[in-house]
């Protein structure tokens, strides 16, 4: 009886949600020119005022930059909570854990792949305003590179002090650029640098600086998460 009621409720909700999608046309009418003024403004401002090639980046970092600061803060709080829960439970390699010595092939392959992965991550966040990707994506790619090294070498360590210094500096850079925009331009994260020409590496004003800061911050935080979880006592 209970299951029947639940299924009935879900069916009614599903019907109305799908009806909404059919009425709107799932993206069709929004793409017609002139119907959504906000969309038109974003597309125009991105190319003309900011000269950024990737519209998603300009929205995430510039028009909705304050939300991105909130996201970074949420990630920082989650990492801090995880670290504070698992802090006392460190143990050495050799106990019952995921850390055991890998074979020669794995260690050599990891050593070969690690610089390439870090380079790819750096490329993704430096070119965030030109090609798909950005700070979050590049940071996660760098963190997976460190994960590979941590799994391959049981004695591979990451300095916690270096991680926290990198993370703090990146956070300060993000907030400082935003505050400088507040002083100089009148609103938080206002652009105060010359925007350059479209499709140039040095274009978009403060957007590349902020995305590089976000990339370093995310990479440091997620590397810290992986290190903490891997060295947790089972």
């Amino acid at each position, binding site marked *: 009886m209970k299951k029947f009621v639940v299924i009935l409720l879900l069916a009614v909700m599903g019907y109305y949600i799908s009806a909404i999608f059919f009425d709107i046309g799932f993206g069709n009418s929004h793409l017609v020119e002139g119907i959504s003024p906000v969309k038109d403004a974003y597309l125009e401002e991105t190319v003309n005022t900011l000269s950024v090639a*990737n519209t*998603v*980046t300009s929205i995430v970092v510039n028009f909705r930059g304050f939300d991105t600061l909130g996201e970074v803060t949420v990630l920082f709080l989650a990492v801090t909570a995880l670290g504070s829960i698992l802090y006392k439970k460190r143990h050495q390699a050799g106990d019952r*854990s*995921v850390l055991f010595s890998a074979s020669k092939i794995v260690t050599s392959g990891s050593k070969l792949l690690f610089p390439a992965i870090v380079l790819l991550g750096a490329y*993704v966040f430096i070119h965030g305003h030109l090609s*798909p*990707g*950005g700070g*979050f*994506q590049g940071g*996660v*790619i760098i*963190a*997976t590179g460190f*994960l590979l090294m941590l799994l391959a070498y049981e004695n591979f360590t990451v300095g916690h002090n270096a991680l926290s210094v990198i993370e703090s500096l990146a956070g300060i850079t993000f907030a400082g650029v935003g505050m400088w925009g507040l002083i100089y331009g009148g609103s938080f994260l206002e652009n105060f640098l010359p925007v350059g020409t479209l499709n140039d590496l040095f274009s978009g004003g403060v957007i590349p600086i902020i995305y590089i800061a976000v990339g370093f911050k995310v990479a440091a935080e*997620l590397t810290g*998460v*992986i290190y903490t*979880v*891997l060295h*947790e006592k*089972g």
Partner: protein
Amino acid sequence: MIYFILIIVLFLLMIGAAVYSIRQKDLLYATIATGIISLVLSVLFYLLQAPDVALTEAAIGVALTTIIFIITIRNTVRYEDESDNKEKFKSGVK
């Protein structure tokens, strides 16, 4: 037309992997199935012209989440024990 068929096949693959990961008692296999869901989802995002989201999904869903689940399984138990679960439910009802 072929594009539409491809999208339908990918959706069916995702649903199949999701059902498999729920039914499977071996938690390691279930975790790999959730990784397959993320992989297919990132391909779908790419086909639907959202490459930014596809990159995020590929990096976080396939690599990081799967690895953290595997580490957790390595540190706890691998098999989902049915009898243990039933007794827990019974004691909960009483």
